[in-house]
């Protein structure tokens, strides 16, 4: 233990991995296989992240599960072979004492002291919460992503969920998000969400995809190199056809309606930058699962000063080299945080990152080629499924932009017109992003709207840092047995 709070804890690991989704699991096992002492820090109650989300009490593929219907769950999950393989490896490393798996540990801050890194995590595994430092020589960050959202009239009505939220209800809980469900937005993720809901017995009114059908055909080179992903897509299409769920493309979600809960949505025929006047169609429903792609959780790499760029899909992502190394030596990033690209790419990047972090970079050329192929497929899908241009025009003065602080588009516009010409200035004057979610939901929209209304460049990075990566109570932060006031540390 350190003798004073201002000393870093002595490193207890060679490699600290944050996140136990596909990328994190791949990194932790790759590093462990190369002899590194690993600490795997994950907020969840079970490994798997979002992609392999399952109830903590269930074990995917186990024989006699309590609680939720395991078979149904298993049918929802792809790549289960990969999951089980990684879990086996992890369990062996933990059993051998070379890896610590810190489950229910939510990283809330990260620091660098010279050449060591300390992740501060809230430990929720015990009766009382406490903050623990996890220190290592290398840091692999695999924090994953969450649904990107854009505001539209009525989107704050109960019954409106993100596509990821609908999927989490199903995969993690065996619960269908509603009885009469519209699935809308853009992106390949809409299909598995709709298929899952249909299989679970919900009446899926329709899937409304804003982009053109088979828009990815324009990027056919990348797609043909990923023929197996085509097969996956066809599987969902078959399921939806079997349940007679209409799948419409070039159909964009325009608004949600209801008084205190969702009652209907409006979709319309999409054009290049708007909708066809008069093409609006009202669909009665009690649930809307809406998704416009994903956006990474970047708090930890940003706090360390990692260089970022804007990816093909408009998301702020980390810049990494061929070994997943960021611009900060010793910090590596794998998975969605360096470019949203799905679980298989995350597995490959995690393996490369874990190997590099352990000091034994991957030499398998096929793995590196796979990374390139999958990344180009991801880029093609991004280009095929952009957030539909024209959403900014469909936002009315009353439309809530920041859900937490209830900041309307009208209020935000006032601020921008008065001189708040970038995302940070808008945040300081109109307060979007100042609530509980700290701009995770409204950050993209605020940056887009501010840029559009003031004619300035789109700069999401200006309001993206969050040194407090997760809320933590003051009580958890209190240092026991220390003098209370006027403390002086050694300079």
């Amino acid at each position, binding site marked *: 233990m350190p003798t004073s709070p201002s000393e870093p804890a002595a490193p207890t690991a060679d490699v600290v991995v944050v996140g136990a989704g596909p990328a994190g699991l791949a990194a932790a096992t790759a590093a462990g296989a190369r002899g590194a002492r690993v600490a795997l820090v994950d907020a969840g109650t079970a490994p798997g992240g979002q992609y392999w989300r399952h109830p903590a009490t269930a074990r995917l593929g186990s024989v006699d599960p309590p609680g939720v219907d395991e078979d149904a769950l298993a049918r929802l999950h792809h790549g289960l072979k990969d999951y089980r393989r990684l879990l086996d490896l992890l369990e062996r490393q933990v059993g051998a004492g070379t890896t610590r798996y810190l489950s229910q540990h939510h990283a809330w801050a990260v*620091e660098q002291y010279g050449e060591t890194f300390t992740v501060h995590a809230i430990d929720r595994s015990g009766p009382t919460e406490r903050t623990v430092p996890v220190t290592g020589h290398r840091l692999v960050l695999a924090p994953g992503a969450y649904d990107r959202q854009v505001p539209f009239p009525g989107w704050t009505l109960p019954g409106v969920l993100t596509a990821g939220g609908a999927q989490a209800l199903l995969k993690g809980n065996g619960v269908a998000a509603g009885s009469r469900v519209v699935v809308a937005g853009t992106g390949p993720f809409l299909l598995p969400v709709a298929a899952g809901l249909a299989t679970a017995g919900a009446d899926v009114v329709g899937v409304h995809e804003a982009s053109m059908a088979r828009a990815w055909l324009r990027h056919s080179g990348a797609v043909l190199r990923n023929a197996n992903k085509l097969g996956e897509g066809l599987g969902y299409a078959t399921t939806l056809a079997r349940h007679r769920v209409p799948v419409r493309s070039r159909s964009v979600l325009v608004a949600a309606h209801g008084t205190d809960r969702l009652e209907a949505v409006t979709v319309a025929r999409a054009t290049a930058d708007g909708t066809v006047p008069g093409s609006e169609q009202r669909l009665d429903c009690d649930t809307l699962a809406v998704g416009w792609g994903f956006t990474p959780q970047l708090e930890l790499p940003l706090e360390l000063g990692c260089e970022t760029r804007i990816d093909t899909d408009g998301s702020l992502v980390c810049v990494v080299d061929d070994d997943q190394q960021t611009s900060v030596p010793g910090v590596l990033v794998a998975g969605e945080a360096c470019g949203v690209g799905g679980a298989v790419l995350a597995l490959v990047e995690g393996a490369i990152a874990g190997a590099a972090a352990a000091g034994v970079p991957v030499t398998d050329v096929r793995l590196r080629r796979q990374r390139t192929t999958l990344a180009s497929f991801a880029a093609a899908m991004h280009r095929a499924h952009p957030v539909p241009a024209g959403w900014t025009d469909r936002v009315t003065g009353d439309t809530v932009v920041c859900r937490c602080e209830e900041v309307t588009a009208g209020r935000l516009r006032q601020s921008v017109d008065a001189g708040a010409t970038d995302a*940070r200035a808008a945040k*300081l004057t109109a307060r979007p992003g100042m609530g509980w979610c700290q701009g995770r939901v409204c950050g993209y929209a605020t940056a887009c709207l501010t840029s559009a209304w003031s004619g300035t460049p789109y700069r999401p990075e200006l309001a993206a840092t969050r040194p407090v990566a997760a809320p933590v*109570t003051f009580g958890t*932060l209190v240092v026991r047995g220390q003098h*209370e006031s006027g403390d002086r540390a050694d300079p």
Partner: protein
Amino acid sequence: MSGSTDRQGSDAVVVGAGIVGAACAYYASRAGLSVTVLERGTVGSGTTSRGEGNILVSDKAPGPELDLALWSRALWGELGGELGTDAIELDEKGGLVVATTALDPLLAFADGQRAAGVEAVPVPSGGLRDLEPHLAADLPGGVHYPQDLQVQPVLAAAALVRAAQSRGARLEQGVEVTGVERDGSGAVTAVLASGRRFPTRTVVNAAGTWGSEVAERLGGPVPVLPRRGFILVTEPLPRVVRHKVYSADYVENVASSDAGLETSVVVEGTRGGSVLVGASRERVGFDTAMSVDVVRRLATQAVRLFPFLADVALMRLYRGFRPYCPDHLPVIGADPRVPGLVHACGHEGAGIGLAPATGRLVTQQLTGQQYGVDPQPFSPSRFAEVPA
């Protein structure tokens, strides 16, 4: 547009649209001067947006800074009327300084302040919770300062600039000063910024924590150094803290030159609902890195004063760099080395509070009006070496 000259020219070019630059623009334009404000970011995007909006007389010992602060506090009252208290979220909440160990030093300090014109009302231990029901029950006592105010600094800076613009002042955002043009006698004739030329006979250095960098570029160096501070922000709460409440050792820390970490807690509510917890002081250059150590110390001290905070979430934090001069006084006034250069920076943690008085002093200097307080202690001459 590179190489373009601002055809109109101005009586004064103000560098920096933080709270001090905004106040300079406001008062100068009110006195009939034509003003152009050059800001490399957006209004209030520097240290102005990194503090708590403190307008305090309570934390100052008798001396020139307290005199400036008393005058400035009165001016804030007037600005509330002129700009609208709601528009700038000006709150006459008052300050409550509590002793956590010995009470006598605080009472003695307050006696001295009272003699200098500060309203300072001692509060016995039993009376503290009448003023602040959530305070810990075992504090020895405190002093109530009814004159302390809080304001939303970015809104205030924006309102000051807008009012100046309504009197003809111009604001240029995204423009960074690179130098000055001077005539044969060494007097300023234009300010150069982002490839453009702004003719003027007066340039006001209101660049806050970057005041020394700008001063260098303008030919009249002054030593302004950064002192890092963190502010913790809680989850949204109903009104739980009525005043600006801080522990008595805050005063000692403000005046200290120690490079090491000093923390002494300041707790107050905001209109948005979150409670703000400060204040830390460190000389670490412009290092923005997170410090869990600082955060935990502040949290510990905050819970000591307000036990209910133990269950309240830290939702976010922000950090900034107070601009301070080695003698802990701001630098305000004409630079003897560069005719036309006027400094208005180095206000450390009191920039918001001292901004109106600074704006008035600068305007009085430019227009030959009588000074509201003696400007000599703030003069840049104290840093100017006699030219060879």
